[in-house]
């Protein structure tokens, strides 16, 4: 049966109900997880080479985390009722969406407290030397403590470790959970697979690490401090990126492969979609251009001795490609699942409007917002080598 030619979808399925905003939501949660992993590798697993960017990654994760719910709320038909998600969660089902609010809140608290402890000692010092609003901000953020003792700082280190250790499973849960929101929908053949949370988790790590590399180099470039970029740090990040990408890509292909090999009735419909309306976004972009090419670039960067400038240049290029790869992957999951109509006989189309409530302009603003938030946070939490480093 040639589903594409017949092209019949149920009348209520003429357009996807989950739009670009839901694509963004899955994308942003992924970025958070990946950036957090970089900081956790330093704080919890003691990766020395990642130490220079550990706290930057943590603050970066936080700046993405605060906007995660924005696209969700914009998408709701009744945004003012969003608190019901927390106040009357459906645990009888249970609804996979109902738990997200709680996991998100817990994760936000974990990251927030970790940041407060990472910066506690410095903030105590800043509080003493600053005045005006900054003084008040530091007074609030230090939660009233003025402890400068060595013992106090040793406790800080332990607490940071604890929050980092708590954060790793929470981060995996957060994004694995997002994967399960899709993976648990049996009515949509393209989503319904237990591999979905795994695919989401690994691709999240890929996007977040790529995000750290791009922002790290760009910030240093724009502040004219490229000489501060540590080659060893960059090399470690690129190796990490390659490792996580191998897993992410492997599981993506495993999912597809199992689907294809089973040759069920559903597969015929999925295959027709992948060769039809999703041909460009899936095969051309996600797989060929943005997966296979970056794989070889990363292999080259990871396994060969590369000059510092080349490492930086190709590091940024490959990271941007992978940031796009993950975006395409999210798009192909969220939108792809919906354009395959439940009639099993056809597809619908979707391309976001430019100026719609859930359109491209709003999406652009949501993606820019974390950069502004990061800039604001940099005024309170210095990212790089601290002035008090010598005292440690």
């Amino acid at each position, binding site marked *: 049966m040639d589903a594409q030619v017949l092209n019949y979808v149920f009348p209520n399925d003429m357009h996807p109900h989950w739009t670009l905003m839901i694509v963004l939501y899955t994308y942003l949660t992924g970025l958070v997880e990946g950036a957090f992993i970089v900081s956790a590798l330093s704080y919890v697993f003691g990766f020395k080479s990642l130490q220079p960017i550990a706290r930057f990654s943590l603050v970066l994760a936080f700046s993405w985390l605060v906007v995660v719910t924005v696209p969700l709320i914009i998408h709701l038909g009744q945004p003012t009722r969003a608190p019901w998600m927390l106040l009357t969660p459906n645990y009888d089902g249970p609804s996979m969406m109902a738990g997200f609010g709680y996991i998100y809140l817990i994760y936000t608290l974990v990251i927030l407290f970790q940041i407060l402890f990472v910066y506690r000692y410095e903030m105590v010092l800043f509080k003493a030397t600053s005045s005006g609003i900054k003084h008040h901000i530091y007074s609030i953020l230090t939660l009233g403590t003025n402890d400068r003792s060595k013992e106090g700082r040793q406790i800080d280190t332990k607490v940071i470790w604890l929050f980092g250790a708590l954060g790793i499973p929470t981060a995996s849960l957060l994004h694995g959970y997002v994967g399960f929101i899709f993976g648990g*929908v049996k009515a949509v053949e393209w989503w319904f697979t237990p591999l979905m949370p795994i695919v989401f988790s690994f691709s999240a790590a890929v996007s977040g690490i790529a995000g750290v590399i791009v922002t790290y180099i760009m910030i240093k470039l724009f502040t004219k401090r490229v000489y501060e970029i540590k080659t060893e740090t960059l090399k470690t990040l690129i190796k990490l990126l390659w490792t996580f990408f191998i897993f992410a890509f492997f599981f993506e292909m495993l999912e597809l492969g199992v689907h294809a090999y089973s040759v069920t009735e559903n597969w015929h419909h999925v295959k027709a979609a992948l060769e039809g309306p999703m041909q460009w976004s899936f095969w051309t972009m996600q797989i060929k251009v943005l997966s296979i090419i970056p794989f070889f670039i990363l292999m080259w960067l990871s396994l060969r001795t590369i000059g510092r400038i080349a490492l930086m240049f190709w590091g940024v290029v490959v990271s941007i490609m992978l940031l796009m790869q993950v975006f395409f992957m999210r798009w192909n999951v969220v939108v792809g699942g919906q354009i395959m109509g439940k009639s099993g006989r056809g597809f619908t189309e979707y391309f976001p409007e430019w100026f719609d409530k859930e359109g491209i302009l709003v999406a652009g603003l949501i993606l820019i917002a974390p950069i502004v938030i990061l800039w604001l946070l940099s005024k309170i939490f210095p990212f790089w080598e601290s002035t008090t480093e010598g005292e440690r």
Partner: protein
Amino acid sequence: MTTMNDFMRKLIVSDDTIAPKEPQYRHIEQEMIDRDRRGFIDKIMSGALGGSLMLVVPMHSELFGELLSEEPTISLDESKKKQYCFIVDVTGCIGCGACCVADRKENNVPEGQYRTWVERYVIDMLGEVYVDSPNGGEDGYSESRDDITNEIKDSYFVPKLCNMCDEPSCVQVCPVGATFKSPDGFVLVDNTHCVACSYCVQACPYGVRFINEQTKTADKCTWCYHRVRKGKEPACVAACPTGARKFGDLNDPESEVAKIYHSKALLSVLKKEQGNDPRLYYIGAGQEVI
């Protein structure tokens, strides 16, 4: 939906079964008052406080205003319990679209959105299946398909509506409990509580859900619950000129649906493999019907 069930049960009990308070209970109350006035007032106060808290603590779902209707469909008495079912006789449907018009009017469904629709199936001699449903079949099928070149083997109309599943995916996924299954088996949406996240729309295997453009909440066919509660049949059933849409109580041996259900008629459900146990049955629907 424990909360819903409990809440409804209380309402029903208070409506049907609570007898006037017996004098001996009054006597006990009097004794309580005499023994410990202060304690009694405390209890009353805490009850009042609890009661007023109920007003601010959000409940899972509100009930329809027409709960206590002329024809109660909910009963705690198992022998009186109704078991509604819907049967569509595909062989009887002429594709006139009267059901869709009636439904839109009855339920104020916005144009371009569909609580029910009628599909036209055409199968050619090579087994190729052609399906369409222009404007949900609401305007009838006066035009034949001119894009089919092969000789036609079979052709029929299939009305679609909520499958009112026993294991509804939409209820399972609703994050706030706004979609629920009533004790009499109807899957309903409380549109005063729905956040319109569209998760239920995604989860429904039958594509019967949509986000109502006017209310900005999830909407779907209710088998005209508001009419059923008044002892009437759903609007589409009443409008069907050929009786292809049938609705009734399986526990009533005199009902048409019970007679069909217990006869040798071959009944089928849609997407059986989904495991949702629909209570919408079809007579004469080919296996190509999805």
